[in-house]
């Protein structure tokens, strides 16, 4: 079993509780995730959908593990993009760990496919979102690039 994965780490000056809320609560994700929000049943086995501002479902899956504000594991499928939505589900693991006055956020995203356009696409998107949620929590402002849903997608 040779999983294909990427691992991103960022340090954010905040508390695990605030970061957890910023990653899951609609009023926060709407600010830095291009207007998107989670329609989710946040418990083990619960379903989640990432809603696009125009009402479409962007991505979806199940909650595999949840331990707020420390660990969240999601089964993650694309729903709306032709070419990506037929791929088998990926797995996203988010771990929060307090380090001094900051929180270390580790994001691991993996698939069983050796070649995965979905994982490539996610690996491009996450750095923007991580930088933007960091900016939101540390300065009160998300990054300009991630504020609005891109036109024509």
């Amino acid at each position: 079993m040779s999983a294909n994965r990427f691992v991103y780490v960022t340090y954010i000056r905040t508390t695990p509780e605030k970061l957890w809320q910023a990653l899951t609560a609609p009023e926060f994700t709407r600010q830095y995730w291009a207007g998107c929000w989670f329609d989710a049943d946040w418990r083990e086995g619960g379903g989640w959908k990432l809603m696009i501002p125009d009402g479409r479902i962007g991505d979806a899956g199940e909650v595999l593990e949840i331990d707020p504000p420390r660990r969240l594991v999601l089964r993650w499928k694309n729903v709306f993009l032709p070419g990506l939505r037929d791929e088998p589900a990926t797995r996203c693991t988010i771990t929060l760990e307090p380090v001094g006055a900051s929180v270390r956020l580790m994001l691991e995203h993996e698939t069983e496919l050796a070649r995965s356009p979905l994982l490539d696409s996610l690996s491009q998107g996450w750095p923007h979102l991580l930088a933007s949620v960091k900016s939101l929590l540390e300065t009160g402002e998300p990054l300009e690039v991630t504020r609005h849903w891109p036109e024509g997608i």
Partner: protein
Amino acid sequence: MDEVFKALADASRRALLDSLHARNGQSLSELCAGLQLTRQAVAKHLAVLEQANLVAVLWRGREKLHFLNPVPIHEIAERWLGKYERHRLRLLAQLKQRLEAAEGGTEE
């Protein structure tokens, strides 16, 4: 941010990042295979990269796997590049690549 620039100011460490960019999730032994450096030197360079958060580490059983972490470089780019500039810079980079390829140059 100082740590990121210091970590990047070394050709061997940049070669290690290139190697992870080509193939993510390598062990120390795998990373050593591609470089003319001792295992100790590679381990030391990896520790600097990890300290600067340019490399993230995952344990898989007894094996330590190394992953390129682009987040600090992304934060640097966000700090100095506006979104319109980024688009123009990408076009310029493409133009440079195309012109240099047309000249038959072999350098990048």
